[in-house]
Each structure stands twice: as C-alpha cells, then as structure tokens.
C-alpha cells in the first residue's frame, strides 16, 4: 500500500514523490491536501496535493526537507512504501467565472500552485504565473509551469537567474501595466502570502491563499490548525486550506507555526542517527 512509484530531486532540499493511492487519486482536486506517515510511530504530516493521476491511481507530493520527519520521508526511494496516506482532505479550490488569473508560487509553494494553474489553464483561463526563489539553484517546476500558463515569470531574490525581485513586486507591476485579474492565487511562505494580499487589497482583486498550519488529524478533530479569518476562528483542515487572503490574520498564523521550534531542533539531532543508520544500511 502507498508505494512510491517515482521520485525526483527537484533541488537540494525539495523532493518529488509519486505515490500509489488510488482512493485519494480518485477524488483529489486542486487545493486539497493529504496526511501521511512515512513509517509507524511517525508524525502525521499534512501536505498539499501537487498533482494526481486518476487513471494510474497516483498522487504526487512535493515537499521540502525542513525537519526530521520530512528528511526521513525524503530518504525513501522508489519501491518503498509509506505507512499511511489519507485524503483527499480540505475543500477544493473553486474558480467559477474566472477569465484571467495570476498564480503566484513562492519557493516550495510553487508545487502547490501548480495544480491550480493546471486546472485553470485546462478551463481555458488566461493564466499568468509568477514564481519566486531565493536563488537559481532552488528553482523548481519551471518547465511544468510554462506548460500550463500563458506567461511565466520566474524571479530570484538575488537575481541569479537574470530576473531579480520579489513575486509581489512583479505582480504589482503586471497589475499596473493594465493586466486585470479576476483572481490572484498566492501560495508560499506566510509572509509572502501576506505581502501579496497587501498588494492586491487596494485594487480589490480577489486573492486566495492556501494555508498549512500545524495539525494532527486533518478532519476537524484537534483544532490545532485554527486560524483567524475575518475575525472568526476557522479550522484550516475542514474550512480551508484556501482562504481569502485579505481576511487572514497572517501574524497569528506565523506565530502559531513556531510553536514546536524547540522540539524540532531536538528531534533533528535525534533523527540524525536514525537517518544515517538507514542510509548506511
């Protein structure tokens, strides 16, 4: 069950895994997520679905090795199986009536923005994609995004790919040049989603962000993923993960994402041995 059928290393920290999960693939839609456990006793890791293939019965996840659990996940190879893979969870994105859209992907967020761009493009929507990375070595999904957009701008913080700047600045420039977007989809680090939402607010452009707070079950049971949207408590797992970026309390989200920083550091050290043991074996 949940066998890895394809693995790619997208950059030094970002891995791509295509996983056999027919029941999830059957229902998955852009914007939804899954929860996996790499092995028994492992953490439940929520990851937004990067792609799915209903015929093959596979679901793709793209993740960054940020902590002990994701590093272990990244050490798995084709033929290995995950212990658990549950979903699709959350509410799918809705894009009725959209004619022109800007899809913004920040770093790893590009992987989650990809199915949205793909879906919109397949619906005949005019899609501009802007992706941003710290430097050119971290760029992912450039070809894939080019294939599902009318225009793709890839930018780097340091300009090492020839285009320097933040995604939010480029979006602003495009808007000011007269591009009228019915919707902006911004997916990436919370701070980037916050800045993009601030850019679009004065123009009144509907802005959808995809949130990935800490959660356990993904079905509304723990309440750990609660976020404040429009002054009300929402559970990202069942009410989201898509929300109106103009209504989200990003500062609270960023603060809540830091709850287990200390624990994570200790876990990293502990896992180092386990991981090395595994690689050497």
């Amino acid at each position, binding site marked *: 069950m949940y066998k890895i059928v394809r693995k790619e290393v997208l950059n030094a920290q970002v891995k791509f895994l295509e996983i056999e999960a027919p029941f999830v693939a059957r229902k998955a839609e852009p914007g939804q997520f899954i929860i996996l456990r790499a092995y028994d006793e492992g953490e439940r890791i929520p990851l937004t679905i990067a792609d799915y293939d209903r015929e093959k019965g596979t679901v793709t996840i793209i993740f960054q090795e940020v902590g002990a659990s994701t590093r272990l996940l990244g050490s798995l190879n084709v033929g290995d199986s995950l212990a658990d893979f549950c979903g699709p969870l959350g509410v799918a994105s809705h894009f009725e009536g959209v004619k022109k859209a800007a899809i913004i992907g920040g770093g790893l967020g590009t992987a989650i923005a990809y199915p949205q761009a793909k879906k919109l493009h397949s619906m005949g929507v005019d899609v501009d994609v802007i992706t941003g990375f710290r430097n050119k070595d971290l760029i992912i999904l450039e070809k894939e995004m080019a294939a599902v957009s009318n225009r793709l701008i890839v930018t780097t913080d340091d300009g090492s790919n020839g285009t320097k700047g933040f995604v939010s600045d480029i979006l602003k420039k495009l808007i000011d040049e007269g591009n009228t977007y019915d919707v902006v989809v911004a997916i990436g680090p919370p701070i980037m989603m916050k800045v993009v939402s601030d850019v679009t607010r004065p123009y009144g452009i509907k802005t959808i962000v995809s949130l990935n707070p800490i959660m356990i079950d993904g079905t*509304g049971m723990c*309440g750990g993923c*609660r976020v404040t949207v429009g002054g009300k408590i929402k559970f990202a797992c069942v009410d989201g993960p898509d929300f109106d970026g103009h209504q989200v309390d990003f500062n609270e989200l960023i603060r*809540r994402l830091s709850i287990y920083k200390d624990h*994570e550091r200790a876990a990293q050290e502990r896992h180092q041995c386990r991981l090395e043991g595994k690689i050497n074996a």
Partner: protein
Amino acid sequence: MPNMSLKKVPIPEQDPQVRNKNFDEVALGYTEEMAIEEAKRCLNCKHKPCIAGCPVNVQIPEFISLIAEGKFAEAYETIIQTNSLPAVCGRVCPQETQCEQRCVRGIKGEPVAIGRLERFAADWAMKHLEKTYEKTPRNGKKVAVIGSGPSGLSCAGDLIKMGYDVTIFEAFHTAGGVLVYGIPEFRLPKALVQKEIDGLLAQGVEIRTNMVIGKTFTIDELFQEGYSAVFIGSGAGLPNFMNIPGENLNGVYSANEFLTRINLMKAYKNDADTPIKRGKTVAVVGGGNVAMDAARSAIRLGADKVYIVYRRSEKELPARLEEIHHAKEEGIIFKFLTNPIRILGDENGWVTGLECVEMELGEPDASGRRRPVVKEGSQHILEVDTVIISIGTSPNPLIRGTTPDLETNQWGCIVADEQTGQTSKEGVFAGGDAVTGAATVILAMGAGKAAAKAIDEYIKSKG
C-alpha cells in the same frame, strides 16, 4: 455465606505520588482471592436490578456467582455473551450511575464492585484463555461501519457473528476511536484495546484505516460499492472553544488535540516524533472526564501545578467520582465556581495567564443544574503557561455535509431512532456520540449493538 462487609474489597492502585509521574495504569486490578472475596458480597437477588442498569444487559449476578466459585473462564464467557469489550467497560464505565447504582448492597454500604469484577474476569481471560473464534458461515451481505470507536466495534462484533461481511472505515491510521486517541494509557492501556480489536479481526472483520467518510468515500458511494447497509459511529470529535479573547495564543490546546498528541501519537514518550508542549503551570477548563484526563496527563508530563477551572461547584462536576478522587490524590488543584473570561499572552504570543471571574450559583437551568452567575468585582488572574479547553465536543460535519438526505438536529447530531438507530436515510443507521453528542463508551456500545440487530432485520426484510 455472603460476605456482609459494607465496603468493597479495595483495588490495589499505584501510589498517587508515583503514578502522577508515569503513564502506567493507575488501578492494578484484583487478584483471584480479592475477586472471590468481593464476588461473595453479591446477594444474587432474584429481581436482578443491576442488569437493568447496564446498557448492554450484562448478566451480572450470574457472572459474579461464577467468580465466587472460582470459575473465571465461565464468568468471562457469561459477560461476553452481551458485552464484546469487557476489559474496556470494566475500566471506563460509570458503574456508579449504572449497574452499581441499582445494587441492593448499595442501600446500606457500598454496592458490589461490579466494574472491578468485570475487569478482573476480562483480564483473567486475556491472560489465561487461548481465544478461539467460531467462524459463522458468511451470508454474502456486506455492511459498512464508519468509525472504529466503541459503537462501531460493538456493531461490527455483532454483525460478524450474524454472518455479515463487515468493513470498518477508520479515518485515523489506528483503529479504536476515542479508546485510543482520547482515554489515556493510565486509565485504559492501549495494548488492551488492540487485543479487543485483534479479536474482531480474527473473526473476519476488515478494518480500513485512512478512510475519511465524507472525503475518501461518501455514504452513497458505499452503497455503490455493494454495501447493503451502513452504520455511522463517527463520534463527536469536533472540539468546542469558549470564544474568549486569547484562544489562539501559543500554548492553548483543545483537550482533543492535547490528548490525541499524548495518546494516539505517544507524545508523552521522550523519543516520540510528535511534539507536545510540556507546560509548567496548566489550567484545564471544564469538569468532565475528558478534563480530568487532560489534567492528569498534564501533571504526568511534568507540570508543577495543574488547575481544573470549572464554573459550577464540585457537586455539579460531570466527571466520574473515581476520576475526581484520583485527580485530587495526584495533586490537581480544583478551582470551582471560576469562569475564564480571557487568556493573556506575552509579546511573543505565548500564554502567560488565564483571567477568570468567580461565580455564584443561582436558579436551576434547563439541565436542572443551578446556573452560575458572575460575582461582582471577582476578576483575578491564574498564572499559567498552558490552557487546555475541555468544554465539550460536537459531531464532525464531514458526513452530514456530504449526505444531504441525512437528517441532523440543531447541534449537528444525526437524528436516529432510539431503539434501532435508523436514520432518515434508508439503509443508514447511526449510534453513539454521533447521535447523542458526547456521552459514554457503554452507551455507544449499546447503540452499536441495537443497530446491529436492526441492520440484520432491515437486510433480511429486503430479502
């Protein structure tokens, strides 16, 4: 000669000051001698009032007489005729408001320790009996059971014995529902729950984990998959919050999240992958069994001070007396007639305190309990670094949201016939907390059994 002692034979327990630092089981259980001695307190009354107090009608005097005669295996067999999870029920049932409340010995002195004896028989059987299951011939009909908590397990257990092919759909990666994510190890060892589940598997029940009904499958899709009937035992897992300022500060947990991290994800173990914040001073808001579990878990995680903050008085505490007693022994501080109005935080957004007001009891409310009213000028701050909200749960909306013809009430509970569990949708039955809102393990089990019977009748009536 019956044993005419007015008191129950005490059950050996871990010392409070030892057990409040570990997650091992608190009550150690009767020895054979203790069980026989306690069993002899039963008068074997002709009218058997205790049985009427049991939601699954365990033949109580009968199994107790067998224990008194030292026939432990037979006692166990008697219990499991009507109760498929005796090791669980012997530990977590509120016997004091059920069987034991009706015990004639309780009129003068303490009632017979029915719960302890049930637990003894179940534990004895687990240790000494090689369990074999007679496989009932299959009748070729499939039934889907949603949720592997108490109601789902008991429903599945009865249906498999009737010859149905039973598939349990569980959203989590492990079966057991509230028995594994909610009730802590020190009250209900998880190995025990697993043994009960293994028993169902051995009889042929299939359990499919990672299946979120409402997402992975809808109810209608289950019928398309060939199931003749569906039982919904999805529980009441959605945590309620108080809607007071500061509830999203770092260090505020729902009891569900706190307990799930500890119980299901084993965060109490030092090398667990899933983290938990080990608070030094903890306030648990609420007075039910879940609040007691959260408080007693917090002290075991190393807290110096753990408060239970409850807005009514001790008399109204909904938790079982035994849990309250154990909590007190372990050093939990009870703040009665105290109601939180705000959670305070530092500049980094971490909890620093719980602002409360004191309450006085006024006129009785709809529930018959006296309504608490705020005492003027009683505002004060409890200095804590962790707040755990344990004020109840509601049924999960995932099923009702994707099953438009399933009637639910204003609280989101599924509307189902009390006797049969029949819902507004043909072929769909429901029971347990998904119907009643948060209640007890044994009531859920009773509902699961009743539904199994009704499902059998329904399928037979369809031919």
